[in-house]
């Protein structure tokens, strides 16, 4: 064996593993993913269709299931736009300006992620519940928040609070303020600058945050469970309805509603992946442009 070929073999072996190690590691990783991710998904489909397609569709036609679907859509339709406006406002202030307490504000935005969903529900009971701060006043004015739709929306807003802001803050920080300043100097108003300069720059990050925020808003269980009161057909969201059916041993019906949520999860993953792949391509396109024009023509 000659010396050079030996060196080459050593270097190749130094940055990767032998074929059988590679195959074993891939095998273990895929087996783990299969057991913990693929099997649970497949089980949802199998359990939902256990008694055939007819029983599955029948379960989805239940008025209570429909009420749950409507409430879930309504909750997400309120919670996501609220957190979207907050996310954009917070990211604008934090990314485009310097001010005291910025680091604290950035940390506080993440706070709801650290709080257990059950605790998130509880704090609204303490504020708006019958024995809470505003309980007597609300009762006197016949306003129901806890065990009613407003409480469900509030709890959902809390648990999905950081999603959009935390996508936008690093993105807008990285983009800096040059383009906005140029627009302002050229005579654009603040709104024009936001709609024509900032928004096109952040649209994919924004969509990414909205998708994840929406998935969590529609799927939240713990926080909503505390404030809902579980009134069938009125204050049950889809995940809560799944729990009610499951506890009543209506397995097919429970998994039928669960299958809709699983489809939502898969659609979320597909959109998320498409955004990421698009983004990867854009980054490659920017990298391949000649150095004197670092941005692609709009």
């Amino acid at each position, binding site marked *: 064996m000659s010396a050079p070929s030996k060196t080459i073999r050593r270097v190749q072996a130094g940055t990767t593993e032998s074929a059988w190690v590679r195959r074993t590691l891939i095998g273990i990783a895929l087996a783990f993913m299969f057991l913990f991710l693929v099997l649970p998904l497949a089980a949802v489909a199998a359990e939902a269709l256990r008694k055939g397609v007819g029983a599955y569709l029948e379960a989805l036609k239940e008025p209570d299931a429909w009420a749950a679907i409507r409430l879930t859509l309504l909750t997400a339709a309120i919670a996501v736009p609220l957190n979207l406006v907050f996310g954009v406002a917070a990211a604008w202030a934090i990314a*485009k300006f310097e001010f005291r307490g910025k680091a604290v504000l950035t940390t*506080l935005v993440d*706070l709801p992620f650290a709080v257990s969903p059950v605790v998130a529900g509880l704090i609204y009971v303490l504020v708006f519940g019958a024995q809470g701060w505003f309980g007597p006043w609300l009762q006197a004015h016949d306003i129901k928040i806890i065990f009613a739709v407003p409480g469900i929306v509030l709890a959902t807003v809390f648990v999905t609070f950081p999603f959009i802001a935390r996508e936008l803050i690093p993105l807008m920080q990285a983009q800096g303020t040059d383009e906005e300043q140029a627009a302002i100097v050229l005579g654009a108003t603040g709104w024009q600058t936001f709609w024509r300069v900032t928004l096109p720059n952040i649209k994919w990050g924004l969509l990414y945050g909205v998708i994840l925020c929406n998935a969590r808003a529609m799927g939240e269980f713990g926080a909503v469970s505390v404030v809902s009161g579980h009134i069938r057909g009125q204050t049950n969201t889809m995940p809560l309805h799944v729990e009610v059916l499951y506890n009543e041993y209506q397995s097919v019906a429970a998994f039928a509603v669960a299958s809709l949520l699983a489809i939502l999860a898969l659609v979320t993953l597909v959109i998320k992946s498409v955004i990421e792949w698009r983004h990867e391509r854009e980054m490659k396109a920017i990298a391949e442009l000649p150095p004197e024009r670092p941005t692609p023509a709009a």
Partner: protein
Amino acid sequence: MSGAATSALSSAAAPLASGGGHGVSRRVLPGFHLTLGYAVLYLSLIVLIPLSALVFKTFTMSWEHFWVAVTAPRVMASYRLTFGASLIAALVNLVFGLLVAWVLVRYKFPGKRIVDALVDLPFALPTAVAGISLTALLAGNGWVGQFLEPLGIKLAFTPAGVVIALIFIGLPFVVRTVQPVLEDTEKELEEAATSLGATRLQTFTKVILPSIMPALLTGFAMAFARAIGEYGSVIFIAGNMPMISEITPLIIIGKLEQYDYAGATAVALVMLVISFLLLLVINGLQGWKRRRSEA
């Protein structure tokens, strides 16, 4: 986590952000007071004031009452289960999360993009769905349970089931924090290590592992923090027997259902304080990670 795309973007877009001091921008760009004011107001209304209710409510209790509520034997048993199961689940995710991240970054195999996308399933799948589906799998007549039952292994409705659910919930954290760091590691260092005579295993433990350690620990801490607060996926599979398979969030729910608001609040405050501490630890780890990647 979900920041994989944005962190890639920020590093690529950073050169564009050069120049333009922030002192100038404050004068030129509009909307500072409006956006900051709105953000702080909304944060206060949705998060800070309701969370402060928890603290104020606890202050209305006497110290003895509080202490009894948070150290009752049933509550203590729930802490042991919650922290024990969360720790085991986070450790499992530490090992397998690193393995999955490694395989996704370093190797080529068919279906890799789908596997990569699937890692985020626990973020996207509602916890209640995960809970009933894992229970169906592990029950005595389930796809997995039917093979384990004859061996005398019972996972559903035991503390082991809690661990399984928490592994599912925490799976993406380690993968998504380690993956981008592993992509950025320089192959030159590994080549240098090899040419200096290191074996592949030595290169891994002495060169690669130290460089991804901050990311690895951040992912571990995030998975652990998430597991401690988790409710939806656990309650279906746990069996919820007092003293044996009852998690702390369920204790809070139980006290609420008995209208013991003070007791529920006391236990919730303990959980909140622990969450704060973990948030501080995670922030510290992320700072370490940033310094490591800038060095």
